[in-house]
């Protein structure tokens, strides 16, 4: 009984994908192999040097690099005008904002990150009580800013939003109740 028979028929797929390049090389005359070996070494060195030319050019011309030294350049860092950071609510000098508590932003938000809690002023008119914004579930999609008809909220320019305390991600955006133009 042969080795193979002991285990039944040998499965077809075993070794079916093995290539046999060594055998072909053996059949070739030895000189061809050496020539190929040498041409590989010289060709490889040449192509490596071609690549090094590019690297050395950049090394000798530091102006051609675009690396920014963050955070050392923090003071001179220029933000793009449309950059989307966290949602902010701009206030004027008196600490008043533009929100009418219409809750359109709350409806537009896909993640339920905004809760607008309205209240009533002395005249019985609906005003904004608390504007709760949860940064942890916000995906910075700017749909709320797009939905707001009064331009009361905007996307901020701050991008260093990491914090150690998860509770600090639930923010109240308005500084006081009511609105400046009511």
């Amino acid at each position: 009984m042969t080795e193979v028979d002991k285990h039944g028929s040998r499965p077809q797929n075993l070794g079916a994908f093995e290539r046999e390049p060594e055998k072909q090389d053996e059949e070739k005359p030895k000189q061809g192999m050496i020539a190929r070996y040498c041409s590989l070494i010289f060709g490889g060195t040449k192509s490596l040097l071609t690549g090094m030319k590019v690297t050395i050019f950049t090394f000798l011309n530091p102006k051609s690099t675009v690396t920014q030294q963050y955070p050392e350049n923090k003071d001179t860092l220029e933000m793009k005008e449309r950059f989307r950071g966290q949602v902010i609510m701009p206030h004027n000098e008196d600490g008043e904002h533009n929100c009418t508590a219409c809750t359109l932003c709350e409806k537009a938000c896909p993640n339920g990150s905004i809760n607008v809690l309205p209240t009533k002023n002395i005249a019985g008119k609906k005003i904004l009580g608390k504007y709760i914004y949860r940064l942890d579930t916000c995906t910075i999609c700017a749909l709320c800013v797009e939905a707001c008809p009064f331009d009361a909220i905007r996307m901020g320019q701050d991008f260093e939003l990491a914090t150690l305390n998860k509770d600090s991600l639930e923010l109240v955006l308005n500084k006081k109740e009511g609105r400046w133009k009511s």
Partner: protein
Amino acid sequence: MDLVSAQVPAGFPETHPNELTEEFYLNMGPQHPATHGVLRLVVKLDGETVKGVVPHLGYIHRSIEKMAESETYVQNIHLTDRLDYLSCHMNNLCLCMAVEKGANIGVPERGEYIRIMICELQRLQSHLLWWATFGMDLGALTAFLYGFDQREQITDIFEDVCGARLTMNYFRPGGSYCDVPDTFIPRVKAVLEGMEKSLDEYADLVGGNMIIQERCQGIGVLTKEKAISYGCSGPVARAAGVDYDVRRDDPYGIYDRFDFDVPLGKNGDCYDRYTVRIEEMRQSMRILEQCIKEMPSEGPYRSKIKTVIKIPEGHSYANVETARGLFGTYIVSDNKPKPYRLKYRSPNFSNVNIIDEVAKGFKVADLVTVLATLDPVIPDIDR
């Protein structure tokens, strides 16, 4: 031997161990840098030779398709960013086109040009990132930095246009949510000029390098038949000789106005996949150049639509060519603001499943090359 056969992971056919060699199973990933995300490959090895690969998916499943049913169409757009995050403009576009088809919304001329230009820039950006990580996977870290240098300029354009660098959420049904700034066209021109020079540099650095060529040529051969039967698309299928590009064969938007070629590979090996992608970058640049010439400088960028978009009862389908292949969106609607069912067809799922056919018989190091040239983006597979 009993130990080995007792540990055969799910997905492998039962094997009869050969007494002469010892076969064993190796987990590659889910935390492997070459898998570009959380992809786990169970590799069956015989020494250094790969005998079989089974991809285990689902590590980053977020049930985006189910979530889609509880969000309106516009809210859904920001979720498509999170599928293939390197083609997010194209994904946005695909969902918007499906909604436009269903709700019968048109797009103004300037809006169409903005869309095409942004999408082609994204293709460039994605291929640049692929080129960078391809070098890194093969051990050439220099390429990584050069690729990112050029990619950064395109990312800056996106930041100028929509304020985000990765999760764009820019297109809306009927156009896009804001117009491009005045600096857009000059900056695109600058990028195109820089790209011409860079592509030559890339050929010097990686493409012409003998070591890279030896590691890619004849490795990971995918035949045309296999590519078709597995449903591969994009550069992977075109490198195998499948002459199909959605932009040319099923033109969406205004792609039928542009003159561009669809590069094809001959052997379907890793080097063909490399050259096809490099050539695709050149074709994208050609489209961008034509766009710059023909784009109207005035006009609306978005058609006026209702705030709440409702699609009449029925279904609509749209597909686009992302940087990785055919991406499709299928919407079944019941005349409500939210979809009844939303299905995404992702190119990466099909592309990564051929890895067993492609990598079998080669060495472990070649598996990394194959994975790098298949260029999968994992969040797109799991959704």
